[in-house]
């Protein structure tokens, strides 16, 4: 039983890793960022490239990936998203387009493959990130064997969630973001630079996705289209938890991850996944705004 609960916890933390960044961008800015999965993908490729070209290990690649994806996010916000605020469906389509562009850029090695130039670590093939020996195999805690890498992921997720909470609730930037979540016009009227805050928020959300990507690279397949399925899971968690609520996102990922593990263990993985979708539908039917919401005025 402990094994199953631990697997559930690990599934939850993977969901939360992807959803954290989305909770920030979707929750705070009301932008459906379909390119979020691609930020995870870029983070994973940063780890691959850092290993091949700079000799950096998985852990050292984490801050690097945060910087790379945060800058990429900032560029996307400045060039595209900024012009589309308040147009929900347009941002969805535009960011989806960006997602496809990014996937193909990696697959075609930024177009260089047309000229016969190949960059190690890019291209349509599958990539590989070496995992430090200490994170391979199992660790024994209280008589139970636990997967070392999954413990590492759970720990990193807790750290990232705490850091995100600290940014949102303990810094001036976070206070501005929360003001914008409640009422953007009023926040602007009070002298908050909404555009600048939004740009920083988008960069933060993208950077979190990049860190998620590095962690995924250690045990999942790194390929150009790896982000596409992740973004669906991410939105599922954010919507179930309640848009704009960090606590809701954490609670929803915990619920869905554990539920997935329990059903999958009792039946099989395919039914487990179906059951998760059933829970999401149920929650949205009963509480359309998600599990945790705050009252607007």
């Amino acid at each position, binding site marked *: 039983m402990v094994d199953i609960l631990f697997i559930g916890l690990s*599934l939850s933390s993977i969901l939360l890793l992807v959803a954290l960044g989305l909770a920030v961008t979707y929750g705070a800015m009301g932008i459906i960022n379909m390119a979020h999965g691609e930020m995870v993908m870029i983070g994973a490729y940063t780890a691959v490239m850092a290993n091949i070209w700079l000799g950096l290990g998985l852990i050292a690649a984490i801050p690097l990936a945060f910087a790379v994806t945060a800058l990429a996010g900032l560029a996307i916000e400045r060039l595209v998203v900024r012009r589309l605020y308040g147009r929900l469906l347009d941002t969805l389509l535009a960011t989806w387009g960006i997602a496809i562009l990014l996937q193909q850029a990696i697959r075609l090695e930024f177009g260089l493959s047309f000229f016969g130039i190949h960059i190690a670590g890019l291209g349509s093939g*599958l990539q590989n990130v070496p995992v430090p020996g200490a994170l391979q195999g*199992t660790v024994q805690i209280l008589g139970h*064997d636990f997967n070392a890498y999954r413990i590492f992921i759970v720990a990193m997720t807790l750290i990232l969630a705490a850091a995100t909470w600290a940014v949102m609730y303990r810094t001036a930037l976070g206070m501005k973001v929360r003001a914008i979540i409640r009422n953007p016009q009023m926040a602007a009227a009070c002298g908050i630079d909404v555009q600048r805050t939004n740009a920083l928020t988008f960069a933060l959300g993208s950077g979190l996705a990049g860190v998620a990507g590095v962690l995924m690279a250690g045990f999942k*397949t790194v390929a150009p289209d790896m982000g596409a399925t992740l973004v669906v899971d991410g939105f599922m968690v954010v919507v179930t938890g309640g848009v704009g609520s960090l606590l809701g996102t954490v609670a929803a990922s915990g619920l869905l991850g554990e539920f997935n593990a329990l059903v999958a263990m009792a039946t099989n993985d*395919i039914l487990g996944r179906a059951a998760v979708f059933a829970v999401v539908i149920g929650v949205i039917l009963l509480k359309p705004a998600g599990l945790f919401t705050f009252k607007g005025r």
Partner: protein
Amino acid sequence: MLAAGVRMAAEEINAAGGVAGRPIEVIVEDGASDPKTYAEKAQKLVIRDRVSTVFGCHTSASRKAVLPIFERRGAMLFYQTHYEGFECSPNVVYSGAVPNQQLGNYIPWILETLGKKKVFIVGSNYVYPREMAKVSKGLIEAGGAEWVADEYLELGHSEWAVMVNKIKDSGADVVLSNVVGDSIISFYREFINQGLSHEEIPICATVTSEIEIAAMGPEYAAGSYTSFPYFQSLDTPANKSFIERYRAFVGDPAATTYHSLEAAYFQVFLWKQAIEKAGDTSVEAIREGIRGQEYAAPGGTVKIDGDNLHCWLTPRIGQWQADGQTKIVDEYDAPIKPLPYAAYGETAENLFCTREGLDSSKL
């Protein structure tokens, strides 16, 4: 990557004077791993470009999507991937392995040489793994062993925590994996990360090739097995030369060769021989000309069967080593006859798929 095998063969044939004195012109289309796109591109090739032969497709889903186009328009498809059998189209030459060439030798070897008694069967959720599981179960029961589970994960999914936990708790002493694509990498990694080892519970795979091993990191697969007619490690002059020429052709000194690539390459030569024998490039000429054609492929002699247009191949079992290559631990002396309906009782004496097509009364 498979297209490179076909293009390389065409280039070599052209350099040596072409087919019956005429050069081959290659038109390349990309199906983008999407059956619908495959169907569109096949239609374009057959109708607009008026080609009589297409080399390609990868998954069974893509082959099923293009099959009606070839049958209706009278064109020939050369299909190089190992597949589940249960097909008998007069418009397809199947040059990859079918289950009796991958499992017929494999399961008895697992039970007898490895001495395993409890098999956990795991696969991706679509037709190939399910058919492979059906063939395996028959062979396992015939060998006096038991299969303890037959489980599937959705195609393309990579969350293996629950499945590997089940393997751990199942009491199985060997895992038969029909997992395909990207999922293979996360499967082997999770397997090792949950503390299982290939020494105690080896993964015996039917799809895991040199490509996936390189992508997961060879240390996760060292000690596990795969059954294929071709491995890059085959130590013959013909294979050494093939690897060298392929690496020069793609301009990558570390490029990997594998079963489907080898089949993509040698099938072009079989096609050439068929045309030269029949003296014509029409579909009827290719179909009749190719029956019984033999070729010395990089992995040894191959022959297109006169009855079912599948390929005679030599079953081999490789054990993965720390360098990402295999050590051949078992191989047949000669190629064996392909039996696409082996799962339904087909034998060399009682063929279901013949020159006249499928005898469905036997199913």
